[in-house]
């Protein structure tokens, strides 16, 4: 470790590693720190990801692909099944279920191979500042504190992000802005070929329950509930109940817990000398909870803006705002749409969800991606979904 870098990236998840890799490839001197001793572990993710969105960033590798899925299956409270997001023409598998422990480490390795320095078991404990600029971090490695300077600090420090708060950006989530989840990796089951989403209060109030295939006889079975609905019920007790009723033969071989931001875009993700990326910037999708590829897209944009900033010698908001504008114009649009849909869906009763499912009788949704699917759903149910009229 040196005492100065062009860029310090706090957090070696997908967003942080892509930022570090992009910066390093552009010739910047980069430090990527991870507070855990193992990158990618413990997992806090259901690990499902769309192929197209992922393959913009990385070549597929069986080391980190646990399973491939044909599409998604929505299950209404009364059991009505709707298949979607398939590629019916070629019968290609459209999604991966990842092995995040390997995937995240692979991305960090790619950042390292591009020239970034990587430090694990290293935690940021505060920001250095000078003349209204963030100028580096205080870090702790193996109990020893260090001051490390940088022109730009990237906060890619996840749901529990502190970097933004230290920089004066309020990233705190209200109970209605977070999905609180538990997942078991289970064995001794038939995982099927689809990512399954069980909707309704009976499964997961304000969220959904999922089964994602993870390979032979194995799946990620989990659920997330809206934080505002948590307290009297807990995600973990609902999940135990689901398993007892629906998968009594399942054997639990791993447990995962975690929170997913569903606040939608926050007001500010840059300040002088500071950029937030991924869950730290609350860039996960409020409807699906998916955050991997959004974080990677944002990381790429952040890295590119860091390179520009270095060329100009300007690390102020004036240059860094190009990142802010960039992500809002791309992933931000989808996140905003998803927020509107989520805000309506969390208020629907199980009966109304059943009604929506039945409205698709005779509709072949199999090849529809989510935006198209929602548009069709709106056309069939204008009254119930009237609130979404500006979107469709």
């Amino acid at each position, binding site marked *: 470790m040196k005492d100065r870098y062009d860029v310090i990236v706090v957090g070696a998840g997908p967003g942080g590693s892509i930022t570090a890799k992009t910066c390093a490839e552009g010739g910047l001197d980069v430090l990527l720190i991870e507070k855990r001793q193992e990158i990618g572990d413990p997992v*806090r993710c259901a690990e499902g990801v769309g192929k197209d969105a992922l393959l913009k960033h990385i070549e597929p590798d069986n080391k980190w692909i646990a399973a491939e899925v044909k599409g998604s299956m929505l299950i209404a409270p009364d059991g009505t099944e709707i298949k979607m997001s398939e590629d019916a023409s070629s019968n290609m598998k459209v999604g991966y279920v990842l092995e995040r422990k390997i995937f995240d480490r692979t991305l960090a390795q790619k950042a390292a191979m591009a020239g970034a320095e990587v430090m694990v078991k290293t935690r940021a404990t505060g920001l250095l500042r000078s003349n209204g600029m963030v100028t580096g971090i205080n870090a702790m490695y193996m109990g020893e504190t260090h001051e490390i300077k940088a022109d730009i600090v990237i906060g890619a420090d996840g*749901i*529990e992000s502190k970097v933004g708060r230290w920089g004066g950006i309020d990233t705190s989530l209200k109970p209605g802005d977070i999905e609180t*989840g*538990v997942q078991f990796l289970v064995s001794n089951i038939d995982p099927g070929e689809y990512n399954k989403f069980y909707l309704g209060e009976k499964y997961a109030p304000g969220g959904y329950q999922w089964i994602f295939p993870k390979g032979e006889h194995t799946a990620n079975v989990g659920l997330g509930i809206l934080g505002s609905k948590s*307290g009297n019920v807990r995600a*973990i007790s609902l999940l135990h109940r689901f398993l007892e009723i629906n998968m009594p033969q399942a054997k639990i071989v791993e447990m995962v817990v975690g929170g997913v*931001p569903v606040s939608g875009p926050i007001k500010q993700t840059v300040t002088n000398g500071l950029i937030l990326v991924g869950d730290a910037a609350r860039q996960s999708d409020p409807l699906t909870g998916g955050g991997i590829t959004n974080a990677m897209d944002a990381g790429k944009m952040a890295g590119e803006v860091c390179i520009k900033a270095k060329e100009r010698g300007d690390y102020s908001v004036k240059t860094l705002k190009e990142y802010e504008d960039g992500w809002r114009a791309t992933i931000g649009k989808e996140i905003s749409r998803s927020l509107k849909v989520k805000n309506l869906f969390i208020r629907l009763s199980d009966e109304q969800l059943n009604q929506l499912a039945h409205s698709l009788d005779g509709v072949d949704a199999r090849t529809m991606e989510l935006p198209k699917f929602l548009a069709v759903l709106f056309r069939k149910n204008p009254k119930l979904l009237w609130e979404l009229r500006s979107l469709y």
Partner: protein
Amino acid sequence: MVVEVNRFKCGYCGACVGVCPVGALELMETWIEVDDSCTRCGVCAKICPVGALEVKKK
């Protein structure tokens, strides 16, 4: 300390840190620390997926 974390339940996921309105919580590697700025609002305890946090009455 006004929020007690049951380490035997806690899965150190950091969800509680994300919702703390005053930034009183911190996720170290495998445990949560609570500092003096805690206002005992209880949001962390409410949203914990496994119910590992409890607000103490002082």
